């Protein structure tokens, strides 16, 4: 009997040795004459267990991990024999960390072969598109709107409204643009889904195309993600061959095709208008809005521009209905959020769950605290532009509005955990430094404010006229927040001000208590 095993080809798994493990399996099986089939999948997202190997059994897939090449001979013995092994984790779907999740968008990630349309279909893929092809544009728009889906890139704008605006615009051509410039540290969900289930992104974009009347789409992927670029390109070729991209999609009269474009290391290109400039072949300089990209987007044409995860949520909504999606979540945050647990965390990875779970549950229970074993001191939520939260705010539910009410943001769902060795003054300075390096330079608050911010925080760290310089930083932050053209300059104050507010003791000198307007709102 041929043993069928699954090993991730996800960059996160490869970075900790998944390729070496796959090679060791091939060699050991060949040497013994054991018939073995290795399927390279995406990652399940349980990164502390990578490289993880799963074996197909009558009870379902059984996982082993983390595996090193040295474990392979004994694992092969176990797989061919009793199945018992010290690294056996049990039936994968029963692993509590996975079982506790609600995987709507990531249902297939780590399960299927990301190069195979057939495997995608066998796991429910392309049912959303099939249904969409039987509906009118208005009916699809109604579904997307009713689902409550909001842009998963960070801004949280209702996807249905964006699509409707483009659908109603008239133009000689329209575009669908997928923002895969996932530059926020602590986020990797876009990368995972592109590597592990690229067809769900393609299907979502195709549905967007037929809804608004666009025949061409671009996926703008950052150059730091070569594995994702390769996976998306391979999937596009496979989808064309299967007749679900190109002319006469699924036998219908609709036409839609896709092209991958690769970024060139500019963080600001994750901002949608800067991304459009970059796609057009120019410097990634932010555009003033209006006009909105929905009216005048790529090459001046009406364009839907959404994050990878927003497109990836669409097939589920079309297949299972808007209500099935909207039934999850809280308040105005409907559905699920693929949350990414990162940094100094014991159980790091991808945790998709309904909105409403608290920050404390995510960090302490699910994440297991730090891997250094020290106390969690600060948690940055939402990338380099997100606020640092202290333990006192761990009761904040994961919800767009709840985070905003506490001067933070959920952004793209990344959570970076820091232990008590962190120097928050240094983190605040880094936020300003990063903004200074990555600023596109168009607006003054961002371009100049960030540089002055670095200088002034340095003075504070050096103990120079601390109170006066703190007032300067606050003033700079206000100017950046309210005067910048986009979120880079506009949100850099979040990490800076939250560090000042919640971790004041790190800024040297005897600062006394924070002034009233800076005191935590809780």
């Amino acid at each position, binding site marked *: 009997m041929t043993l069928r095993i699954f090993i991730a080809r996800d960059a*996160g798994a490869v*970075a900790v040795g998944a390729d070496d493990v796959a090679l060791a399996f091939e060699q050991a099986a060949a040497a013994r004459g054991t018939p073995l089939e290795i399927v390279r999948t995406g990652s399940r997202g349980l990164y502390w267990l990578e490289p993880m190997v799963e074996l197909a059994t009558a009870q379902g897939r059984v996982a082993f991990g983390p595996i090193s090449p040295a474990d392979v001979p004994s694992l092969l013995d176990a797989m061919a024999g009793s199945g018992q092994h010290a690294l056996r984790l049990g039936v994968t779907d029963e692993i509590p960390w996975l079982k506790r999740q609600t995987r709507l968008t990531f249902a297939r990630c780590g399960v299927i072969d990301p190069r195979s349309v057939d495997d995608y279909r066998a796991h429910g893929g392309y049912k959303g598109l099939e249904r969409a092809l039987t509906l009118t544009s208005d009916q699809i728009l109604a579904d997307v709107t009713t689902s409550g889906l909001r842009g998963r890139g960070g801004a949280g704008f209702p996807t249905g409204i964006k699509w409707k605006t483009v659908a109603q615009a008239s133009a000689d051509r329209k575009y669908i643009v997928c923002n895969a410039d996932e530059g*926020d540290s602590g986020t*990797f969900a876009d990368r995972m889904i592109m590597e592990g289930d690229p067809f769900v992104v393609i299907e979502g974009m195709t549905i967007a195309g037929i809804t608004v009347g666009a025949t061409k789409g671009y996926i703008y992927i950052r150059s730091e993600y070569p594995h994702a670029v390769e996976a998306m390109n391979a999937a596009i070729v496979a989808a064309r061959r299967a007749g679900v991209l190109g002319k006469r999609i699924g036998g219908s009269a609709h036409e839609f095709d896709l092209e991958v474009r690769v970024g060139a290391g*500019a963080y600001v290109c994750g901002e949608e208008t800067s991304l459009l400039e970059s796609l057009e072949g120019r410097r990634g300089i932010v555009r003033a809005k209006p006009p909105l990209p929905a009216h005048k987007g790529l090459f001046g044409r009406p364009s839907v521009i959404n994050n990878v995860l927003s497109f990836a949520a669409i097939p589920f909504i079309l297949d299972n209905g808007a209500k099935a999606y909207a039934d999850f979540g809280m308040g105005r945050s409907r559905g699920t959020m693929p949350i*990414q647990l990162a*940094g100094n965390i014991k159980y790091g990875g991808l945790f998709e769950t309904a909105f409403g779970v608290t920050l404390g549950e995510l960090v302490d229970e699910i994440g297991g605290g730090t891997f250094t074993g020290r106390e969690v001191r600060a948690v940055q939520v939402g990338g380099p532009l997100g606020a640092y939260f202290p333990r006192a705010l761990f009761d904040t539910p994961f919800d767009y509005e709840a985070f905003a009410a506490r001067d933070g943001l959920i952004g793209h769902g990344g959570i*970076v955990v820091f232990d008590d060795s962190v120097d928050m003054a240094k983190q605040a300075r880094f936020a300003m430094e990063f903004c200074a390096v*990555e600023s596109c330079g168009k607006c003054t608050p961002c371009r100049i404010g960030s540089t002055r911010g670095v200088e002034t925080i340095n003075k504070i760290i050096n103990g120079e006229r601390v109170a006066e310089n703190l007032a300067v930083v606050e003033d700079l932050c206000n100017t950046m927040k309210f005067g910048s053209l986009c979120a880079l300059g506009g949100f850099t104050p979040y990490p800076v001000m939250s560090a000042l507010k919640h971790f004041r003791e790190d800024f040297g000198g005897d600062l006394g208590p924070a002034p009233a307007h800076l005191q935590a709102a809780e």
Partner: protein
Amino acid sequence: MSVGYEAWDKARGAEIIAEHAGLEGATLVMLHALQEAFGYVPEPAIPMVAEALNLSRAEVHGVFTFYHDFRKQPAGRHVLKLCRAEACQAAGGDRLAARAEARLGVALGNTTADDRVTLEPIYCLGLCATAPSAMLDGRVVGRLDEARIDALVAEAQR
């Protein structure tokens, strides 16, 4: 001069540019393709891209200098990129970066005197759950510790 790259040749450059001339907004695509072939974007290629796209030389130069990825000159034989973003900072990345700098005798952003290794910062490889992470000539490595960073540096120096 990095191994595996072609030496600059105007006819070859023109051929690469022509391959992509039919695409919408092709500037970045052409610059990427040139760098992939030659290891950097040779200065004489800039006006050639401009001409192919009916842009001014200044516009293409502006694009070339805006993006961190494009190189004015060849990198060292090996390129070691260390992630310096927050998730890797939280996992001890600062200390490891300092260690790599000390071992190689160059600061981040520089190439060793023998042209063997270019050490660069990178802001997020998306390997934040297996931090700290790095990339050596396109190969990703996670869960770095002192032993692993030393091994990577040694490999890059070979």
